[in-house]
């Protein structure tokens, strides 16, 4: 087991290396001059002396291969570089935006799993019932509306409209902004809750639909398994049969989906955070790409890629919990 984990951890290295190399090359050929960005002269000519000073400070006059080497040298020592646009260390920007994104993502994943799995199980248990049809239609709809449209609709319906109608304070949702104070990392203090609700639901919407559909499908497959009949035959009540024997086996592909969907979640977060002006990594990355602020994009992406790979490792390891047959390392003994 330990050997397996170590081997999997080592596999993180080529993935992270490859991902960042692709981005580095992309950013090296992106048109636009970081010097202009730093000198604050959008479009205006930068004095030659200033240009040389900046190029030297950031090593921009070196050939690409040297820059690439330097990029890894400093990244490996934990230095993520300095933003071209704001001249702030990328690690500061990361420290500011990472917790906010993590909170939003955790809440979205909680909604995805709780609502998605419950809806999927309900739909499967009562296959072809009204509830099943309703779940199918709602999930298909949720997965087919662009994230930003859902975001704007929510802002309009729960924020702008109640405001115009002069509804009481608690019924009006703020449409922009991030909670300032958090308790136990995850819980916004009292009134800040209302900043979280809309972006959280919007971000969770696509994933919830996918999880519900996947749970339904795998539950239906599992329902035909012999062990389900055995469980019923030995007199277990239906609830136990469905939850302990059915759901637990059906969850493996669902958990895989949640892990793989993480990349989509990050993509959706870029949009959701932009729509709701949420001070997270997604919004930061979107802005930085447009500003050609390569150090920020590369630094934040590094964190995203590492998180993605580690979570998928956890997903693989969790198979053993759901299905004893795939417990790693046992096959040899």
């Amino acid at each position: 087991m330990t050997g397996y984990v170590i081997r999997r951890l080592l596999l993180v290295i080529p993935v992270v290396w490859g991902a960042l190399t692709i981005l580095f090359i992309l950013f090296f050929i992106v048109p636009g001059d970081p010097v202009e960005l730093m000198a604050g002269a959008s479009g205006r000519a930068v004095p030659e002396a200033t240009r040389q000073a900046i190029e030297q400070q950031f090593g921009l006059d070196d050939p690409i291969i040297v820059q690439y080497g330097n990029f890894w040298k400093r990244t490996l020592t934990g230095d993520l570089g300095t933003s071209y646009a704001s001249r702030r260390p990328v690690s500061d920007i990361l420290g500011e935006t990472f917790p906010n994104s993590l909170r939003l993502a955790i809440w979205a994943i909680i909604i995805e799993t709780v609502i998605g799995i419950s809806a999927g199980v309900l739909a499967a248990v009562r296959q072809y019932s009204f509830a099943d049809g309703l779940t199918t239609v709602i999930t298909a709809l949720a997965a087919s509306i662009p994230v930003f449209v859902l975001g704007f609709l929510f802002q309009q319906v729960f924020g702008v409209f109640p405001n115009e109608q002069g509804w009481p304070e608690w019924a009006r949702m703020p449409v922009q902004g991030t909670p300032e104070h958090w308790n136990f990392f995850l819980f916004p203090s009292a009134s800040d809750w209302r900043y979280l609700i809309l972006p959280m639901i919007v971000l969770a919407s696509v994933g919830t639909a996918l999880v519900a559909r996947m749970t339904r499908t795998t539950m239906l497959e599992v329902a035909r398994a012999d062990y389900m009949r055995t469980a019923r035959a030995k007199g277990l009540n239906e609830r136990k049969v469905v939850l302990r024997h059915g759901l637990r086996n059906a969850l493996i592909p669902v958990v895989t989906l949640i892990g793989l969907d993480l990349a989509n979640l990050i993509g959706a977060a870029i949009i959701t955070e932009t729509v709701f002006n949420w001070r997270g990594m997604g919004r930061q990355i979107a802005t930085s790409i447009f500003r050609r602020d390569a150090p920020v994009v590369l630094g934040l992406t590094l964190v995203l890629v590492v998180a993605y790979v580690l979570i998928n490792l956890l997903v693989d390891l969790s198979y053993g919990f759901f299905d004893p047959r795939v417990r790693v390392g046992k096959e040899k003994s």
Partner: protein
Amino acid sequence: MAISVPDRSLAEEHVGGAPPVGETDHSVAPPTPRGDIWRRFKRNRLAMVGLVLIVVIVLAAIFADFLTTGQPGKVNPADANQRLFSPGHPLGTDRVGRDLYTDVLYGARVSLRIGIFAGLIAASIGIVVGAISAFYGRWIDTSIMRFTDILLSLPYILIALAIITVVGPGERTVILVLGLLGWMAIARVLRASILQVKETEYVDAARALGASNRRIIFRHILPNTIQPVIVYTTLFIGAAVLSEAALSFLGVGVQRPTPAWGLMVAEGRRSLANYPHMLFVPAIALSILVVAAVFVGDGLRDALDPKLK
């Protein structure tokens, strides 16, 4: 024009994937695999609804010239901000007076082109890569799968943004970017199912009969492993249409004057408070197309999977 591709029933078109059968006459009593698949697909009500919707959208796209009188994407400030059902503009106009009815019909062409071509690119790359990986195995397999891992670990929207800032936005860029970033799941699925089929007796038998590698691949293995690829590609077409909307929202999607549904939705958001129809008209068209693709994809999956009878 390429948009005529899904005009035929998707189920019919894709049964090229079924094992070769000499006779495909549907009325003959013993059901052929092709007829069998179509029969099961037909039984799925949602899938049929999806198929009909797609056919309607395709027809609208093909006959846009006859169904409209205006010119797509034509700005006409005198007619700006017309509401639904206003004279001459059944679906209203947008902020600069483009007729939404005209633009939605012509936009169907663009959105379908994006979905289908991106889907074809993704499927072609996915099939080639997945097949190579499964056949050659060993270090080729390992390095290809590691490379797919790398691409999967990067949020596609991030690479798309970076690539588009390099080559400039536009319909062609959107198609290329979505196609080039969408093949990984297809390659993985195909690889997994080839690895299963490779071990079956009929492949051994073909090899024992002296069939060439090429023959084994194209006659025996691909027809039996292509089904999940078809399903994935159908679903991907919907996803690509949605991605166009996301890219347009960020300002790097299709550019005016070309009307694409995602672009129109992204433009309509600015008028949501006063003229909601500018967002809803293209958004509903877009969602119908995506939902239809999902329904058809699901229907195909159930129809192609003999276990789920």
